[in-house]
């Protein structure tokens, strides 16, 4: 009786899980199929769209890599991401440390205020920021993205790091100061190494969030050679009204999977940052 019930439960569990896996992962399976399918096979509504009816091909991949700016988009994305990470770290680490260690009263309010700015969306800011970018002569330049992406990385990363620094006991720094380090020295030599996992998390998020960004890149950059992956693939692989589905899917797939792999490792910490205060 109980064992058959257990089997039933297990069966239900696997069914639920497979339904969710199909729902979540199917678009990516769909990308894989289109990437390697011959056009003749792809554009025949009678063919089974889920399988290869003809031998797979590398043509779409070749076209994507050698006849479009795809590799340039990847380089641009990487450059912007790296610069945003550097700016975010150099602003958010000291701010978070300051809020975690010395904040009372006004500092607490300031911390919450910084987090709330994360809720001011690009949708409200992109029109004025487009003017700011053009005033600074940065339109069409990757520098405009480097300057503006920290608007969403700094508030969130400061908040996240603040939580990390709070978990490091004060006694450790105080011991270091007794041992002769200055206040600043204690922070740099003792606290930062202990907070390295938090800092690594911030590096990953600042990078992935800049890679995901769409609105600012779409607004500021229209020159093909300066586009990032998230706007380059959806806007440049369409010629007029003709969607080049094979290369398009190949581009979406190649750019999504690596960042998804890295992100997955850090997802729990990201969520911890979101829910801080709600769960104890």
């Amino acid at each position, binding site marked *: 009786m109980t064992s058959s019930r257990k089997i039933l439960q297990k069966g239900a569990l696997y069914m*639920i899980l497979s339904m969710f896996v199909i729902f979540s992962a199917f678009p990516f399976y769909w990308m894989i199929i289109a990437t390697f399918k011959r056009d003749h096979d792809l554009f025949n509504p009678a063919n089974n769209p889920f399988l290869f009816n003809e031998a797979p091909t590398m043509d779409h991949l070749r076209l994507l890599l050698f006849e479009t700016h795809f590799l340039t988009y990847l380089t641009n994305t990487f450059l912007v991401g790296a610069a945003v990470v550097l700016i975010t770290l150099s602003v958010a680490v000291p701010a978070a440390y300051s809020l975690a260690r010395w904040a009372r009263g006004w500092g607490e309010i300031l911390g919450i205020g910084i987090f709330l700015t994360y809720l001011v969306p690009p949708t409200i800011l992109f029109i004025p920021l487009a003017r700011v970018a053009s005033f600074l002569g940065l339109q069409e330049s990757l520098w405009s993205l480097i300057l503006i992406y920290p608007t969403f990385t700094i508030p969130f990363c400061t908040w996240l790091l603040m939580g990390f620094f709070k978990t490091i006991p004060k006694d450790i720094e105080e011991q270091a100061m007794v041992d002769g380090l200055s206040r600043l020295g204690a922070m740099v030599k003792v606290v930062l190494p202990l907070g390295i996992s938090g800092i690594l998390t911030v590096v990953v998020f600042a990078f992935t969030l800049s890679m995901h960004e769409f609105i600012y890149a779409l607004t500021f950059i229209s020159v093909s050679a300066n586009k990032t992956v998230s706007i380059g693939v959806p806007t440049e692989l369409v010629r007029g009204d003709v969607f080049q589905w094979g290369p398009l899917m190949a581009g979406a797939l190649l750019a999504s999977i690596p960042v998804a792999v890295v992100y997955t490792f850090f997802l729990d910490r990201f969520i911890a940052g979101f829910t801080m205060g709600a769960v*104890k």
Partner: protein
Amino acid sequence: MSVPENNSKAISSPGPGIQDRAGLLSKLMIMPAIVYITAMIGFPFVIAILYSLSSVTTGDPEFHFVGLQNFKDILVDPVFRTSLKNTFFFALVSQTLVIILSRILATALMADFRCKWAVRFLVMLPWTAPISLGTIGWLWMFDSIFSPFDWILRRLGMLGAPGALLGEMQNLYWLGEPALAMTSVIMVHVWRLLPLATVIQLAGLSSIPRELLEAAEVDGARAWRKTFEITIPLTMPIISIAFLFGLVFTFTDMTVVYVLTRGGPVHMTQVLSTWTFFKGIEGGDLAQGAAVSLFLFPVLAGVAALMLRMARRTEVV
């Protein structure tokens, strides 16, 4: 806690070099963040408000104050009304679905099974992959001729045959029919935010003390009673967090609608964010674009206030 405090003061008092003056250091270290946020978020936000009260366009960037004229013009614009309605509709419907589905998925993920890491990676993909690229995958799935949904429906005899349930046409034209286009947008939002809500709910579920559930089991409580009388009430704060964040993300998102439908067919899926873009950037009417975008603000302020209240309440408990 006060003892080490005094200790540090005692040490820093003899030589108050800059690297030892905590008060000054704390201000110096937080200054860059405040300056940046003021310059790049605060200042643009004020400009957005000023623009909405002016007649600034990309062609004529000079500032002329026009009062509330833009808001008056917008409010009688039928496209704006559709956008406003859609923005709320998409966000509320998709997030309600997300909360229900994420609760089911999170409960399933709490169980023990093989290859958990692979399942987790796959169900997290919609959130971890760049949103515009995931949406491009959906665009191809909603293709007017090669949609796999249509293919399955045709195979099942529900489409494309005389007397078929969904009509004789070979295709449903997902993004061409207003109701189907709206369904498609909601589907992609659900797909995209389900992973985030699931991980948040997982955090909530694993914070419930095991003894509590075991005690309930000893008392003979059934599974559904455990769910509705213990886990849901206990995880309510975290469910609200998931809901509020999901709401903010869908409410302000432009990518899904922009990539999928561009607001079409004939503005039927337009939302505030895409309408801001089409008016303000493509149309060059910065003033009206800014005015449209500001309609997002009251809701965001409301969400922020709710979050603060919840944060304070959990702190008191």
